C-alpha cells in the first residue's frame, strides 16, 4: 500500500516537472538572450544600439544602430496588417453573421490551410510570383522590396485574424443580436454596430497577436525583402528586417564569441521583448473578454 502511495507521489512530481519545463523554456530564452546581449552591450553603448541610424556590423566601418532593422520590420508588418486586418475582419463577419453553416464548415478549414503553408513556401511565392506581378504595373519596384513580402505576409496571418475574431463574435450572446433586429436594424447594422463593438476586446486581441506574428515572421522577408538595412518608409526598395538579419548572420560563418556573432542575440532580445509584450497584452484582453460573457 505504501509503495502505491509513494509511486503516486513520484508520478505527480514527474508530471509537474514536465509542466514546469515550459517555464524553464521561457527562462532559458531570457537567459541565453540576456547573457549574449550583456556581452554585446559591454562593447556597444545601449544608446548607440537603440538610437543609431546605421546598421553595418559586417562591414569594415562598423555601426550598431538597430533602427534601420526596426524600421524594416515595422514597414513590412504595417503592410501585412493593412491587408490582414480589414480582410480578416470582413471574412470573420461573413462567416459569423452571414454564412450558412454548411458553407462555413467547408470554407473555414480551407481558409485555415493558409495558416498551415510553410513560410518558406510563401517566400517563394512572394519572390517569384507576387513581385513580378506587381512589377508589371509598378515598374519602379525593385526585385527585393517590402511591399511584396508584406502583402504575402498579410495573406498568411489573415486566417489568424479571421479565426480569432470569428470566435470572439460567435461568443457574443444572441440576445444582443435579437434586440438589434427587434429595433429594425439590418444585418449589416447589427454586425457593425452591435456584434463587433461587443466583441471588441476579443477582436483587438486577435489584431495584436497578428501584429506579433508579423513582427516575428522570418522566411518570407529573408527571401523576398532583401538584405539592405535602410531607414526608410519606402516599400519599393530592398530593406532588411530584424529576423532576416539573424538569418543572414546564421548563414555566414561568423565565429562564435565575436561582436558580430553577439549582434544576433541583441537583435533577438529586442524582437523577443517586442513580441512578448504584445502577446501579454493580447492574452490579457482575451481573458477580459472571456469574463464579460462567461
Amino acid at each position, binding site marked *: 500500500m505504501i509503495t502505491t502511495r509513494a509511486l503516486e507521489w513520484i508520478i505527480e512530481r514527474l508530471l509537474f516537472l*514536465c509542466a514546469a519545463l515550459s517555464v524553464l523554456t521561457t527562462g532559458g530564452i531570457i537567459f541565453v538572450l540576456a547573457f549574449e546581449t550583456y556581452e554585446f552591450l559591454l562593447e556597444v553603448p545601449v544608446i548607440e544600439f537603440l538610437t543609431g541610424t546605421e546598421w553595418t556590423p559586417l562591414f569594415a566601418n562598423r555601426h550598431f544602430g538597430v533602427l534601420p532593422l526596426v524600421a524594416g520590420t515595422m514597414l513590412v508588418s504595417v503592410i501585412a496588417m493593412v491587408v490582414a486586418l480589414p480582410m480578416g475582419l470582413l471574412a470573420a463577419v461573413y462567416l459569423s453573421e452571414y454564412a450558412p453553416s454548411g458553407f462555413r464548415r467547408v470554407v473555414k478549414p480551407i481558409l485555415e490551410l493558409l495558416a498551415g503553408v510553410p513560410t518558406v513556401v510563401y517566400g517563394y511565392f512572394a519572390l517569384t510570383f507576387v513581385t513580378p506581378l506587381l512589377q508589371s504595373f509598378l515598374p519602379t519596384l525593385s526585385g527585393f522590396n517590402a511591399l511584396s513580402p508584406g502583402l504575402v505576409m498579410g495573406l498568411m496571418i489573415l486566417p489568424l485574424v479571421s479565426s480569432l475574431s470569428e470566435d470572439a463574435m460567435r461568443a457574443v450572446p444572441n440576445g444582443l443580436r435579437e434586440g438589434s433586429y427587434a429595433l429594425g436594424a439590418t444585418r449589416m447594422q447589427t454586425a457593425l454596430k452591435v456584434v463587433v463593438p461587443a466583441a471588441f476586446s476579443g477582436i483587438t486581441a486577435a489584431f495584436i497577436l497578428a501584429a506579433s506574428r508579423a513582427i516575428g515572421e522570418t522566411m518570407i522577408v529573408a527571401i523576398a525583402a532583401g538584405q539592405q538595412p535602410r531607414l526608410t518608409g519606402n516599400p519599393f526598395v530592398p530593406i532588411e528586417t530584424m529576423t532576416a538579419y539573424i538569418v543572414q548572420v546564421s548563414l555566414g560563418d561568423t565565429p562564435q564569441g565575436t561582436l558580430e556573432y553577439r549582434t544576433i542575440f541583441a537583435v533577438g532580445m529586442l524582437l523577443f521583448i517586442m513580441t512578448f509584450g504584445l502577446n501579454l497584452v493580447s492574452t490579457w484582453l482575451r481573458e477580459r473578454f472571456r469574463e464579460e460573457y462567461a
Partner: protein
Amino acid sequence: MKKQADLLFQILSLATLIIALAALGALVYDIFVDGGSRLSLSFLMNTGSRNAEEAGVYHALMGSIWVIALTGLLALPIGVAAAIYLEEYGTRSRLARFIELNIANLAAVPSIIYGLLGLGLFVRLMGMGQSVMAGAATLALLALPVVILSTREALRTVPSSIREGSYALGATKWQTIWNQVLPMALPGVLTGLILALSRAIGETAPLITIGALTYIPFAPDSVWSKFTVLPIQIFNWVSRPQAEFKANAAAGILVLLALLLSMNAIAIIVRDRFQRRGRA
C-alpha cells in the same frame, strides 16, 4: 436603401473571402507550373549537386524525416505529461495558472527565437553541435505548447463518470489516468501531435539559426549526424539567381507539401479508426 447597403456589405465580405481563397489557389497553381516538370523519381533519389538538373532532395527529405521523428519522440511524452498535470492534478493552484499563462505566451514566441535558444543552449552549452539531436530538441520545444494544448483538450472530452467509476472500483488517481483516461483521449492526443509535427516540419528559421544550413550532401545516419532539411534546401535553391534552381525549389516545395498532406491524412485516419473502435 438600407437593404441595398446590407446586400453590398454582404457581397464585400464574401469577396474578401474569395480573394483570400483565390490567392491560395494562385500559390498552389504557381508552384505546380514551376516545379511540376522537375518532379521525378531521380529528383527524390538524388542528393545535392552543383548542377541543377542532377540535384535532388534525398538528403534533405531524409534529414526532415529524422528530425521530425525525433521531435515527436521528445515532444509526445513531455507534452502529454505536462498536459496531464495541468488538467488532472494542478488545475486550481496559482502555480498551474502561471504555467498555463506561460505556455500560452510561448506558443506565440517567434520561431527564430527558439532557434537562438537552441543555438545557445543545445548547440553550444550542451555541446550537441549542429546535429539532428540539437535540431529535434529545438523543434520539440517549439512544438510543446501545441501538443500540450491539444492534449488538454482531448483529456477534457473524457467524461468525469469514467474517472468516478474507476475510483469507485478502488483505482488510484494514476491508475485511473493510465488505464481509463489516456486510452480514451489517445486519438485526440495523436491527432494533436501529428498536427504539431506537420507545423514543425515546415519550420526553416530556427534550424538555420542553429546552423543546419551547411551543404550536407548525405542523409543522416545517427542522431549526432549533421543534417539539412527540406525547407532549408528549398531556401537555398530560392536564393540562387538561376531559373533552373527556382524550378528545383518549386519541385522541393511540392515534395514538402506532399509530406504535409500525408501527415494530415494520417491524423485524420488515426482519429477515424480510433473513434470507430471506441464506439464498437
